[in-house]
């Protein structure tokens, strides 16, 4: 974004609108969807950052979040959240892979239209960010310490603060 500053405000606004709200899905749940899709796309930078932000929101440690993301069906997540992550997994493959039965199941388990909408858009957003980061070979010079510090700042103040 430093290379192309014109796009930064739009991307930051989009990220904040989607991830920094507790309307429907909580901030922690939103970050978890982002981290999960980034993992599926093997985008390590995005996965690590958004797992760390999820840890802050969910008051969980790294091990718990790692374990959750590596085995969603056997995790402690709610049935509704598992159904939403299955939709996110399909979105990661492609929009046309989302089946009506998946959406019906999520709704049956209590997901609202708003939550289903945001799940699809968050999964789509990370399908975008992961490709942007890895497509240009972006690397990070974060150390584990600066990295956690950054995640805490994001959790408290949002993106681009």
């Amino acid at each position, binding site marked *: 974004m430093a290379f*192309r500053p014109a796009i930064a*405000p*739009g991307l930051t606004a989009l990220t904040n609108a989607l991830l920094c709200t507790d309307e429907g899905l909580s901030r922690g749940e939103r970050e978890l969807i982002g981290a999960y899709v980034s993992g599926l796309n093997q985008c390590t930078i995005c996965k690590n950052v958004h797992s760390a932000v999820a840890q802050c929101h969910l008051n969980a440690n790294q091990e718990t979040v790692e374990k959750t993301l590596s085995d969603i069906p056997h995790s402690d997540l709610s049935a509704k959240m598992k159904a939403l992550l299955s939709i996110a997994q399909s979105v990661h493959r492609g*929009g046309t892979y*989302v089946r009506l039965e998946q*959406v019906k199941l999520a709704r049956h388990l209590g997901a609202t239209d*708003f939550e289903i909408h945001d799940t699809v858009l968050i999964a789509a957003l990370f399908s975008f960010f992961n490709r*942007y980061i*890895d*497509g240009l070979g972006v690397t990070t010079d974060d150390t584990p310490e600066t990295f956690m510090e950054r995640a805490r700042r994001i959790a408290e103040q949002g993106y681009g603060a």
Partner: protein
Amino acid sequence: MAHIHLSEQLPGIRGLMAFRPETATPLNALAEILLRSDEGLSKGERELIATFVSSLNDCFFCKNIHGAVARFLLPEQENLVDKVLRDYQTAPISSRMKSLLAIAEQVQLGGKFVDADTVELARLAGASDLEIHDTVLIAAAFCMFNRYVDGLNTFAPDDPDMYRERGRKIVEETGYVGSSPK
């Protein structure tokens, strides 16, 4: 029928934008910056990349809207858009544009699929860093827009005239910032 209840009968992404205005504004701002600039890549070339990626993602709505915009912006060569979608390697476009579409094709598969040789080839064909950057960004962004539109199974009309008229309107009147329903 769409997977969620969209109150207005607006096609494709427009119904979604009416459903969630908080995300519609930055999404339209992003489309405007990505597609409505002639810095490096021309507007027509940008729309061609968007159409190409939407076609690879099998997104009927985005492919037809951006195809219509690209046809409007690149009128010199008849059926150019269709030729690119059929086989860009034999289409009547520059070798620079072919090499950029090769990058876009890899981005569609995933960020990790972009290899250094393909980028080097684009550079040898005369593409600048800005053009390579914008190609990756446009291709990646359409992997979002396409998933958003199809992941919620939005309605896409069949009528080619609808897409032609929307394409003209986006180019001549509204751009993307002014295209979302109030």
